[in-house]
């Protein structure tokens, strides 16, 4: 250290109005740094009301130019807020941006402590730590890499479709991958959409067709992403295209195979278990693409070795029982995840009787019941398929806002419950009860819809339903489902007999969201939704650059919000594509060849497979393009051969010493 040339350090202490200055004596901190840290090279300290303002930044840039500063410490807010601001300012003044260090004396000091003397003392230690550290910083250059203009979108629901169309219309290529046989997602299953009562299929299918026929969109349905490697601008993705047993080149989508197939199977996915499909099937009439899929588990030929009715009748010879899964490798620059949600499994709320009491329906089942293309052609009837209900109870917040299941609000269920109330009322004239905890209709034209349903005569009971039972206590309850609920507005218990109960089930993360997150290198919140980069200011980006999340994969939301997010992510992707190259943080690990003993301890530690062992030289080497800069290998190397730029041993140790105020006296003094 002693033989090193002394750096010229400037320390800038921000008042942040009274945000910092109210709790920390900023003038004292600046003065103290000047006096006590001079031997480390601090040549100037200043304090200013708002360092991030253009005048504040000017103080710094002027000093860099006039005083020849070689290092800058800004004691202000969190680096996550203004690190970029001050790095850019330094860069504009000709100083390498990585020679700037932020000392967080707002989030970590003034906002969390109250005693001014104690807070000021801590602020001094934080500044001393930053000064110590910045001396050890080294100049780094951003790594520029070209961006592949292709984009992968995972999930063909409305959010994914919207995102794909925006990018494709801008003239760039999109791979849209969907694991079901058709795109459309949950929206394709709905009958009407709130609050306008638009027919869901009428507004969705044109978009599906557009996505299916767009020259810039490669549609890969009945496919899964199985591997993702690389980084922003340069992802290498492997997609498994599952065997359809139908040759897409030859198939015309005429549907004869489905007609002739003798095997009926309960459709658990599209018809929510209420209807049937064949073993070879397209999930619904407007499916995109319109090629059927053979369900191998249920196909008579695959089970017994005979049948092949579909093959016999196919006019174009498109049935191919020998078709195999296919692995497709693609290179893309950005990835949008639109993987959607799972419906909360209402069986878990055993006191509501779903699965045990036949006339308790889930919301998705009701969507199919009321859908003209559904199993009952849109007739709202009981499980027997013919009886029209006279009284219907709709229970809100099933599995949501419930400490036993999910704490969060599923956002859409109130409006969904109101929509169901309207449809039941309109089509059957039945008396409809809505059981709710709080009515949440906060969005454009939503509350007006609530008013409309109120005026239509739907009854509302505010209270969480305790039980749905068929155990009658009174004559009027015989043969009915009885809803036991505390009416919290009237302050009494009620038993309301109905014919049909609809559970407005909540949304929950896909059962495989964790694994999918791992595959793409993004994280999930404690509830299991994908985590956005910033909950307010960056809601579609993730911590992993080049990967975006849209629609319900990010959290429960309605169709307009999903569409908005799909488009928002596309804007971000197009921004990246048009920049043609992306700057990567130069925070990387590097191996010093002379020190590496070839022990290979680091090899297995890297989750990104960035470390390769070069057998000929008996050393390990790190691929900077793959390295994400976590530093685990740096900490593990027994020979100290790996260094981490930006977070080196020297920097961290210097900061420890600084924080402990061990750097206040000149060495040897």
């Amino acid at each position, binding site marked *: 250290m002693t033989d090193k040339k002394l750096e010229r350090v400037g320390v800038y202490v921000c008042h942040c109005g009274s945000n910092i200055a109210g709790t920390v004596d900023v003038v004292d901190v600046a003065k103290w740094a000047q006096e006590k840290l001079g031997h480390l090279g601090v040549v100037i300290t200043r304090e200013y009301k708002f360092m991030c303002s253009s005048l504040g930044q000017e103080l710094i840039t002027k000093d860099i130019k006039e005083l020849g500063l070689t290092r800058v410490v800004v004691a202000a807010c*969190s*680096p*996550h807020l203004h690190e970029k601001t001050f790095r850019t300012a330094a860069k504009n003044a000709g100083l390498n941006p990585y020679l700037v260090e932020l000392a*967080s004396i*707002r*989030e*970590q*000091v003034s*906002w*969390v*402590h*109250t*005693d001014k003397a*104690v*807070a000021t003392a*801590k602020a001094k*230690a*934080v500044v001393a*730590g930053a000064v110590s550290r910045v001396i050890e910083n080294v100049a780094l250059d951003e790594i520029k890499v070209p961006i592949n203009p292709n984009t992968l979108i995972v999930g063909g629901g409305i959010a994914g479709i919207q995102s794909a169309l925006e990018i494709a219309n801008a003239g760039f290529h999109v791979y849209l991958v969907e694991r079901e046989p058709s795109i459309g997602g949950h929206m394709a299953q709905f009958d009407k959409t709130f609050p306008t009562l638009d027919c869901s299929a009428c507004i969705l299918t044109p978009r599906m067709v557009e996505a299916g026929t767009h020259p810039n969109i490669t549609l890969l349905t009945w496919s899964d992403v199985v591997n993702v490697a690389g980084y922003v601008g340069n992802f290498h993705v492997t997609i498994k295209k599952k065997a359809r047993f139908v040759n897409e080149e030859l198939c015309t989508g005429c549907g004869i195979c489905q007609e002739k197939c003798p095997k009926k199977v309960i459709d658990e996915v599209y018809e929510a278990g209420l209807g049937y499909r064949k073993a070879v099937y397209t999930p619904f009439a407007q499916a995109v693409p319109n090629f059927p899929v053979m369900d191998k588990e249920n196909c008579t030929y695959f089970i017994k070795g005979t049948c092949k009715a579909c093959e016999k009748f196919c006019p174009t010879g498109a049935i191919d029982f020998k078709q195999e899964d296919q692995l497709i490798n693609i290179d893309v620059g950005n990835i949008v995840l639109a993987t959607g949600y799972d419906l909360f499994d209402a069986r878990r709320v055993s006191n509501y009787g779903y699965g045990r009491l036949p006339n308790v329906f889930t919301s998705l089942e009701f969507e199919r019941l009321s859908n003209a293309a559904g199993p009952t052609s849109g007739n709202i009837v009981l499980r027997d398929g013919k009886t029209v209900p006279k009284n219907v109870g709709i229970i809100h917040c099933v599995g949501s806002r419930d400490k036993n299941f999910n704490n969060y609000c599923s956002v859409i269920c109130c409006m969904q419950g109101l929509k169901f109330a309207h449809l039941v009322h309109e089509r059957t004239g039945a008396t409809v009860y809505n059981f709710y905890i709080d009515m949440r209709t906060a969005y454009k034209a939503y509350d007006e819809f609530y008013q409309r349903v109120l005026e239509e005569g739907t009854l509302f009971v505010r209270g969480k339903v305790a039980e749905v039972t068929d155990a009658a206590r009174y004559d009027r309850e015989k043969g009915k489902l009885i809803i036991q609920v505390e009416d919290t507005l009237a302050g009494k218990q009620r038993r309301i007999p109905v014919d049909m109960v609809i559970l407005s089930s909540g949304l929950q993360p896909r059962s495989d969201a*964790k694994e999918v997150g*791992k595959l793409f*290198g993004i*994280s*999930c*919140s*404690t509830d299991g939704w994908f*985590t956005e980069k910033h909950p307010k200011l960056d809601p579609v980006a993730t*911590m*992993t650059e080049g990967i975006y999340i849209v629609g319900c994969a990010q959290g429960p939301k309605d169709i307009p919000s999903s569409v908005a997010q799909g488009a928002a992510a596309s804007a971000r992707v197009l921004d990246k594509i048009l920049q043609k190259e992306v700057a990567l943080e130069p*925070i990387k690990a590097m191996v010093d060849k002379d020190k590496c*003993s070839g022990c290979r301890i680091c090899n297995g*530690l890297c*989750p*990104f497979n960035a470390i390769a062992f070069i057998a000929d030289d008996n050393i390990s080497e790190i691929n900077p393009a793959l390295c*994400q*800069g*976590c*530093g*685990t290998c*740096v*900490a*593990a190397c027994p020979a100290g051969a790996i260094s*981490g730029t*930006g*977070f080196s*041993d020297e920097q*961290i*140790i210097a*900061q*420890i*010493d600084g*924080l*402990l*105020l*061990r750097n206040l006296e000149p060495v040897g003094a």
Partner: protein
Amino acid sequence: MADNFEPTIIGFTCNWCSYRAADLAGTARMKYAPNVRLIRMMCSGRLDPTFVLRALSGGADGVMITGCHPGECHYIEQNYKALRRFLLLRRVLAGLGIEPGRVKLVWASAAEGAKFASETTLFVEEIRKLGPLNWGKAVTGLENLQEEISKFEEVPA
């Protein structure tokens, strides 16, 4: 002395979860004990156990290691490596006669500002009960240690 003992604690945070938890505690103005001074690393997996020893020998009475919850690591699974090192380090410390409780591991997601604040305050109280470490002061003759080590390093492999 023991009554007005104010511990000094070094806290290691990861850039993605626990540092953001500390930021959130700040934004939400949650008050916690002022004894902890934080260092930001990219990942808790970056934690070299010698950093902890350096802090303890340099005057810290305790060290708090924080990171993303298991399964939520930005670098997929590197916090598990931090966990392993932490467990080993505690055994080493116990072997050296230092209370293992002076080093604590806390998982805090970016949304858990409240947890970060309460765990910090709790840890300060734990260290207050253990009393000052005084390791750095008790052990002398460390000044030339680095030189001696470098002599060994010069021995050809």
